[in-house]
């Protein structure tokens, strides 16, 4: 099985980069390779100029990693004890360690629960602790693999603020997520990935415009007797990929060429249909367009 194939991606220092894709797309595999947890069978990857295979020690010194899910914490220990252990793993000790742990606990809003065992924490609190663990070593490069899984909306919003702070600090962040709104809100650029291949890398806004070739045109109040004929005519316009009747009295046209949507609109207006609207795809639609017909199936 090939998990990643022909991946060519450069994330400049200081950028918050989003990696979007469905389950099994290769997002986590990429994160694991970059974090030196997984050895690639071929190819080359470097973090901060250090090769992830040959210079693992250098890479590990500058990265912080947060894998998604609830696992990975020591639930019988307190939040503070968890962070103290991980801080020691990054070479901190003594007063510096204690100060750093206190600062992280405050930053993630767990200062008041610092001495409670993690087994009593909610999923969102555990996820915040995961974040603190990933940042405890003051990393230059932060790899966040589905970091907001299980967070409530308030915590997720705070997370976005936190990512903003990481950007302000000049850190580089690679964030994998399913959440389009999150990607749009926090990422400088977004890469779509599926089946181990990168499909596109753009700024969230630019990505939307890039995909505007996939515009959608909706016509309403179309007399029922004219619908079949109009559908036939619209299908003949170059760049139109799909035309279908929409209840109660509408037509929806999908296009895949930049100049197709204006032609569709013109044709509809010329045909006396005055209730016409085009819609700009949001990132989620972009994502779905690129992923295509695969839906929720997980590829091998």
């Amino acid at each position, binding site marked *: 099985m090939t998990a990643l194939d022909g991946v060519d991606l450069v994330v400049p220092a200081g950028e918050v980069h989003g990696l979007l894709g469905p389950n099994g797309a290769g997002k986590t595999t990429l994160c694991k390779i970059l974090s*030196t*947890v*997984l*050895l690639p069978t071929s190819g080359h990857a470097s973090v901060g100029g250090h090769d992830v295979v040959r210079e693992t020690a250098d890479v590990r010194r500058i990265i912080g*990693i947060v*894998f998604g899910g609830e696992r990975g914490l*020591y639930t019988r220990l307190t939040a503070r004890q968890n962070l103290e252990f991980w801080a*020691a*793993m990054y*070479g901190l000790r003594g007063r510096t360690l204690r100060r750093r742990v206190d600062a992280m606990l405050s930053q993630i809003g767990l200062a008041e629960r610092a001495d409670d065992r993690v087994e009593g924490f909610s999923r969102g609190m555990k996820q915040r602790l995961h974040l603190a663990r990933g940042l405890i070593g003051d990393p230059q490069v932060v790899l966040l693999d589905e970091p907001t899984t299980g967070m409530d909306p308030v915590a997720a919003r705070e997370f976005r603020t936190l990512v903003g702070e990481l950007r302000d600090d000049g850190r580089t962040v690679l964030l994998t997520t399913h959440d389009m709104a999150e990607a749009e809100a926090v990422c400088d650029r977004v890469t779509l990935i599926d089946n181990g291949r990168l499909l596109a890398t753009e700024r969230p806004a630019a990505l939307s415009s890039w995909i505007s070739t996939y515009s959608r045109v909706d016509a309403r109040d179309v007399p029922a007797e004219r619908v079949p004929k109009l559908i036939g005519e619209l299908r003949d316009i170059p760049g139109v990929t799909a035309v279908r009747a929409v209840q109660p009295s509408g037509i929806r046209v999908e296009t895949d060429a930049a100049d197709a949507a204006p032609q569709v609109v013109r044709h509809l207006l010329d045909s006396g249909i005055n209730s016409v609207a085009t819609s700009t795809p949001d990132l989620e639609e972009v994502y779905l367009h690129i992923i295509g017909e695969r839906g929720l199936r997980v590829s091998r």
Partner: protein
Amino acid sequence: MNALAAGFIFEVRLLRRSFDEMMVLVTAPLMTLILLSITEHAGRTDLAPYAVLAPALIALWTIALFTSGEIIERERQNGSLEPLVATPVAIGSVITGQILAVTLLSLVGFAESWLAAWAAFGIVVPIVHPTAFTAALVATAFAMAGTASVMSSVFVLSRSVRAYQNSLSYPFFVLGGVMVPVALLPGWIEPLSRAVFLSWSADLLRDSLTPEPVTNLVARTGVILALGTAGFLIGLVLLRRALDRLRRTGTIGVA
């Protein structure tokens, strides 16, 4: 050193909240009572040191096998091995610190065994040669930790850890001469048992409890330390190979 200490402190904290991992310390005194009741009933009071020492050594080995031996696999199951591997720390030092903590705590079995003999039978087994006893105990703990580091690296690659653990208990109690001295076993066993540090430890500890002078203390302690050092070195090599294999196969995080 920082990583070693961090691993040690972390494991102590974890064991305080996970006493089930040290359940053998509950059964060790009971075994002392069983063995002592046999030796006393047979009128062999001279075998009391054997009956007191054996459960403590068995506890030491069993905890190493089932607790220290599972340290890496436990991290893997917990999902914390991946982030641990991704830190700049020398992971071997952390694991060694953890194993040392488990090993030191398992020495409580010696105190328990002595106390059980005194409390139930009024028997106080004197430590006739305290220097030899202390040297043997320290060397034994060191060698046990070294051997446990081999176990933990091997077990993380095994698909049937329990089968290994079960098969590594009683054979080693025999090879280690924990109850019956190796000298009393069939001759062909001795060469095998001399490769097991436990046989040297058991003999030296027993000798330190009897009135006769302890012979070749330095050399015998040296053998135990050498076997322990070999364990540590082999353990570190195996750990590196195990982690490389897990990284290559992408199974570090697979429980």
